[in-house]
């Protein structure tokens, strides 16, 4: 079973570099203070690679891909 992946932000770490919005413009835009607004939809299979790169390149490793689950 391939579980859907979600974008998860560690808000205590995120510095609002905005790199993630460059990688994933269709899922992440920046708010008026420069912090990511994530659309919350499961990441489509075709985008997962790009999302993984965004996670790896976030300067403070604040972005993670996590399996969708309750709670």
């Amino acid at each position, binding site marked *: 079973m391939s579980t859907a992946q979600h974008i998860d932000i*560690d*808000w205590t770490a995120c*510095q*609002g570099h905005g790199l993630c919005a460059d990688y994933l413009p269709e899922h992440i835009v920046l708010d008026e*203070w420069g912090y990511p*607004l994530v659309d919350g939809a499961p990441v489509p299979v075709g985008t997962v690679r790009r999302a993984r790169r965004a996670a790896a390149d976030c300067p403070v490793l604040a972005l993670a891909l996590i399996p969708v689950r309750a709670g």
Partner: protein
Amino acid sequence: MTATFPDLHMPPRLLAPGATPADLATHHQRYGPPAHGDPEILLRTVAESGLTGRGGAGFPTYRKLVSVAQAGRRTGRAPVVVANGAEGEPASRKDRTLLRLSPHLVLDGLQLAARTVGAGEAYLAVEDGVIWLESALARRTADPLPVKVVRLPKSFLSGQAAALARYVSGGAALPTHQRPPVRERGVHRAPTLVQNVETLAHLALVARYGADWYRTAGTPAQPGSALCTVHVPGREPRVVEAPYGLPLGRLLPLEGARAVLVGGYHGTWIPAPEAAELALDASYLGAGVLAALPVDRCGLAETARVLRYLALQSAGQCGPCLNGLPRIAGAFRTLAAPGPQGTVRADLARWSGLVEGRGACHHPDGTARLVRSALTTFAAEVDAHARGHCTATDHTPLLPVPEEG
């Protein structure tokens, strides 16, 4: 300071009568010996009782106990239990009052919870300044698990589960990005049960007297009773034990009230006529704060003071919270004074949306909830302020807000 109601709605279950602290002998006399039954049977009883958490979230206690016990088995680590008496909410006094009057009920519940999840360590977390608990603990020579008292710096968020787990582990009392959750990885990375002290006190009674007894108070959907801190202007706040389903008007007088704040500073303003139709309900009760706002006061000014406090209490760790809460508080201050409002209403709506769900803890969510309910409940006052009027005649601050953040 606080007393049980003279006009009782039910005989108090938790608070020792007469506002006199119950020592161990009095405690045993009143409730009988603690129950030390089989954990499986206790779990079933708790499930049947329908007991829910009294720290604000109202999560079923049974499910929490089970998930911590399971996490313990899965990880092979003995869980940790933390009794949460760190009442950060300035308007709430129920946990402090319970710990003062009936410490042994809480401590019975803590032992039972520890046994049920197979805990290897137990803590009782209280606010700085609560000093009498060690003497109560010293008398409890029959307790299987020693309990360590932990004192937290007074802050709105120190009682948040992740903050508490971090503090007990030796860190700062600040919320963390909780993944996995505290129930799986909390104090010293062990599965951790953080349970409000009132919940533990109820647990101690459910273990003694059973689920049916517990359900004799409250409604079938929301069984049991809850401790509430009731604020009526001109009187000291009172801690009252009331069954779910009780009409709100029986708990606090609504004649002459403009609105009621239910659930505390992360709660909701409700117009008095609507509040008169409500029954005590766990879905909005939060940690049990009920405060009446008289017609001669300004709900916007009160909310502005609370929001300033909430913004100062933000741990400042998360960008949206750090940026949004001070702006929200500032904008609300503009609304609270009669005069031109510019773009303030639109700003408040936008910022409330921007902070919601975008923090490591629920502080931004609770703050946004308070803002929205104030804008709805005091819509007429916002309009009056825009025209340069204020309908309030008494501007003395009402809700308790600590002086410095």
